[in-house]
Each structure stands twice: as structure tokens, then as C-alpha cells.
């Protein structure tokens, strides 16, 4: 930047003001949620409000963690998200390999369909899913959630995986093929190990999508022992209407897995987020 030291100073001050205002917009609501989860239920809407007050305690967290019903939500969410992640990663590796390394007749059309699936509204699929899942005999089961979640995780995963394989030189797999390895061997022995960063990106992003899903979990499960965390929060809101601190504690605990993954794999997350829209 060009300018006198004075101008630069002024610019810096303005920049910092903007930065801090932005941080308040993004961060204060979250800070308030976390601080409220440590208050007693009576103090949450106290007047005047305070960020931390005398009622500070871990009671709400202990209540959530001591309730087997609510722990079950976490167990279900982890189980479903992990299964969705594994299935999506394997399926998308196979599909990405096909799109990246082969030319075939319906390649363009199939590619368009897979991109297009992203725009199918979940609410449109919900009505037939209900009938289909009941007909398959998997209503109110983990299988119902894993299968339906994959419809929405797969298309990103395939787009990302194809893009990643495209960045790897073809000479690599050709060398193995000449040595007598089949295409399947090439994929698992050569491409998969060196694509690990791409696979982690797909996995992390898939886990997050599955962890957050709401509509299918709401309609395709019935009993509380099959509910996931987002639905658990919804139930808590209805049941004993205003156990605010417990709802907030459950929310904070329910956000931790994604937050931790996010902090650990920031770069991958960002790659995942932009894979659907931005290429290059």
C-alpha cells in the first residue's frame, strides 16, 4: 500500500474497528450461548443480563451427561455419521476413479446427474422415502438414515474425489498396469494411498453433513432410542419446554465434534465447502 505513515495508521485503525465489529457479529451470539449454558435456568433471562453470574455451574452439563437417553442421541449420531462417512468414502473413491480414468459413453450425462442431485430438495424426497423405507422394512433403523444421508453426501464426495484423482498423473497407474496389476489393484495400492489428503477432505466433510442432518432423521425414526442429536435438541424443546440451560448444554456438546474436526482439519473443510461450487 502507498501512503504516508499517518495514512497507513488511520487505515490500520479503521481496519481493526471493522475486524472487531465483524468478530462481534460472528462470535458474540456463540459466546452468549456458551455462557448461558453455565447459568441456572432462572438466571438465563435475568434482568439486566450478565455474561457470567453467580449461578455459574456445570449442572446442565452433568444433567445431560448423566441422562442415558441423551447419551444415546450422541451414540446414534456418532454411529450413523461414521457409517455414512465410510460408505460414502468407499463409494466415491470407486466412482471418482471411473470418472477420472475412463472414457465411456454416458460419462457426461452421469456426471451431470451427479452434479444435479445437489439441487434436489430433501423435502421432495421425504414423502416417497417414508413409503419406501417402510416397504424395505428399515423404518426406524440406522440403515434408513445411512442410506438416505448418502444421497446428499455422495454427490459432493464424487465431485471432490474426481477432482483429486484428476490432479494425479496418469503415468502412475499406467506403470502399475504394465507390470501386470489390474485396474482395481492400481486403485487401492497406488491411487488411494497418495490420495489420502483428498480422502480425508471427503471424509471430514461427509461426517459433518451427516452429523447435522435433521429432516430425514425426524421423519424416518420414531422411537427415542433411534434419535440423533439434532432431533434430541428438538425433542428437549418440546418436552419440558424450557429447560434452557440443558438445551444449550446439549447444543454445545453437540457442536463439539464438528468444532474439533474443524479446528484440526481447517484446510480440508474449506476444500470441502468450496468443492461443490468452486473448482480450479
Amino acid at each position, binding site marked *: 500500500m502507498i501512503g504516508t505513515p499517518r495514512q497507513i495508521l488511520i487505515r490500520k485503525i479503521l481496519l481493526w474497528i471493522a475486524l472487531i465489529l465483524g468478530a462481534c457479529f460472528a462470535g458474540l451470539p456463540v459466546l452468549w450461548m456458551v455462557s448461558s449454558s453455565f447459568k441456572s435456568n432462572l438466571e438465563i433471562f435475568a434482568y439486566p443480563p450478565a455474561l457470567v453470574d453467580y449461578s455459574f455451574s456445570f449442572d446442565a452439563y452433568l444433567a445431560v451427561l448423566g441422562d442415558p437417553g441423551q447419551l444415546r442421541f450422541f451414540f446414534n449420531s456418532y454411529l450413523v455419521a461414521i457409517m455414512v462417512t465410510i460408505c460414502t468414502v468407499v463409494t466415491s473413491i470407486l466412482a471418482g476413479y471411473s470418472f477420472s480414468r475412463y472414457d465411456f459413453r454416458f460419462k457426461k450425462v452421469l456426471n451431470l446427474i451427479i452434479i444435479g442431485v445437489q439441487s434436489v*430438495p430433501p423435502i421432495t424426497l421425504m414423502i416417497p422415502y417414508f413409503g419406501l423405507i417402510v416397504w424395505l422394512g428399515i423404518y426406524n433403523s440406522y440403515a434408513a438414515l445411512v442410506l438416505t444421508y448418502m*444421497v446428499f453426501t455422495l454427490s459432493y464426495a464424487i465431485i471432490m474425489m474426481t477432482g483429486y484423482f484428476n490432479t494425479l498423473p496418469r503415468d502412475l497407474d499406467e506403470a502399475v498396469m504394465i507390470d501386470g496389476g489390474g485396474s482395481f489393484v492400481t486403485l487401492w495400492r497406488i491411487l488411494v494411498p497418495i490420495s489420502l489428503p483428498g480422502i480425508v477432505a471427503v471424509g471430514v466433510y461427509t461426517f459433518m453433513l451427516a452429523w447435522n442432518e435433521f429432516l430425514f432423521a425426524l421423519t424416518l425414526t420414531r422411537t427415542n432410542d433411534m434419535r440423533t442429536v439434532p432431533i434430541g435438541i428438538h425433542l428437549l424443546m418440546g418436552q419440558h419446554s424450557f429447560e434452557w440451560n440443558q438445551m444449550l448444554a446439549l447444543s454445545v456438546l453437540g457442536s463439539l465434534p464438528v468444532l474439533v474436526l474443524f479446528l484440526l482439519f481447517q484446510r480440508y473443510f474449506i476444500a470441502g465447502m468450496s468443492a461443490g461450487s468452486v473448482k480450479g
Partner: protein
Amino acid sequence: MTTANPSESIQSSNIGWEQRKRKLLPYGYLSPTLLLLAALTVIPIGTVFLYSLVDNVIVNPNPPQFVGLENYEEVLTNRKFRGALSNTLYFSLVSVVAHFIIGLSFALLLNSRLLSGNVKAIFRVIYILPWVFTASIIAILWRLLLNPHGVVNFVLLELGIIPELNEWLSDRKLALNAVTFINIWAGYPFYLVSFLAGLQGIPDDLYESGRVDGGNAWQLFRHITLPQLRPIIISLALLDFIWTIHQFTLIWMTTGGGPLRSTEVLSTYTYKAAFSSHEYSIASTIAMVILAICTFVAIFYVRSQRMTDE
């Protein structure tokens, strides 16, 4: 799975088999994907379409009756549907525009050369924070803040911005704007990270030659930054528009479409038609209309994707 076969070069029938196998191989790798998409996308969409053409489906004891486009006529002329449609469009358009403005502003701030790497890293995490939370948690969070006795009312009242406590989510005049605001808060980080990546991709010499030509900051932004980001902006906006039309959880858990349908969007309207009123034909018809709108937008999205590819 393996193509290694000792006698392959001798018999011609074997070569033909090999060739056919090679041709089928890519489909083999795609088969799990195709199977899943056929079973859980293509067939269900066909089913919804059929449901939308008949009456008495699923729960009704009477046999289904083909009614052609009557359901569509009924839906499209219904005042509730039109209200939901206009709410959906308002919610989506305002969200997309605001996401774009906030996402780009934050990206430009974080891209400033006056900041050190560490400062950028910290603020980047804070700015992306809303994106870590799932819609049902965002709903709880804002119900806490926007509660009539909540902290937002307190601050605005103390500052003299509002004359009295507002019922943000249960006042007919405020609720739609309140849920739109919540969606804006929840959704801008997606733009932010995409723009950050996009800004880093703009070569420095473009700006330098712009400066040599005497351009000021605004002109540089207008004639270099914006045109360079154009492909990203277009695909982001289209994708975001589609996602916002899909939005169900946030509205379901903040207002449930109320009060008095003032925040009813197409997805909550469909859900109620199906699971509260059990009018599956009508619900299917609305679902088809949403699909049509999203497909229309998606056509532009796929086109913009192709442009960036080539």
C-alpha cells in the same frame, strides 16, 4: 477383478471378452453410486410425480384416482401456497444478497496486507464460527437471543434503538425478517471461505498494473477484484439460492412457519400438508413445484460450472 490372464493374446474370443470387460469396467466402478441414485433419487422423484397426479394416496382407504393436473391447479391457485412461495422467495433472495455482501466484506478484511498471518488466522476462525453449528442449534441459539426477555432486546432498548420489547419471532410483522436474519448469520461463512480462496488466486501484477494506471482502491476493486471473482460469485449465489429454498430445519425450529403463516415457506408447508393434514397428493404436488424451481436454478448452476471448467 484382475485383467491378468495368461492365454489372453491367443484366442480371439478372449480378446473380445477383454474388450467388453474394459468397456463395462467404468460402469462397474460406478455401480454402487448408480444403484443408490436410482433407488433413492430417480424412483422416488417418479413416485412423487405420480402421487401429484392422483387423489387418495397412501392413507386414504379409497382407491387412488387419476386426476391429471387438478392438484396443480388447486395448489397454484391456493392463497396459502402463494403466501409460502412469496415468503420463500423473499427469504432466499435477501439471504443470498446479504450472504454475498457480508462474505465478500469479511474476505476483503481478512485479505488485507496490513494484518499479520496470526491475526488473520484467529479472525478467520471467529468469522467461520457460525458455520460450525447445525441448523437446529442455530435455532436454539437465536431463540435464546431473540427471546422477548433476551439479550438482543435488552441491548437495543438500552441503546434507544427500539421503544419497547419486541417479540421478534412471534410478531407477525417481524418474524419473517427475524428468520431471514438468522439465516444470513448462519450462511455467510460459505461465501467467506470461497472468496478467500478466490482472492488468493488473483495475480498481484493485475493490481500493480492497475495502480500504475492511477486506479484508486474502489476502481481496483470494481475493475479487477469483482470481474476476477465473477465465476465464483455466480456459482455460489446459485447454489446458495437452491440451498436456501431447501431450508426447513431453521424455520421449523424457530417459528414453525408461524405466527399465522407469516414465515411459512414451501418446505414447511409441504411438511405440514404431508404429516399434519395427511394430504399426500397435495404435499407431493407442492414438492414437485419446489423441485421445478430448484431444477430451473440448477440448470444455470450447471452451465456456470461448465464455464469455469473450460
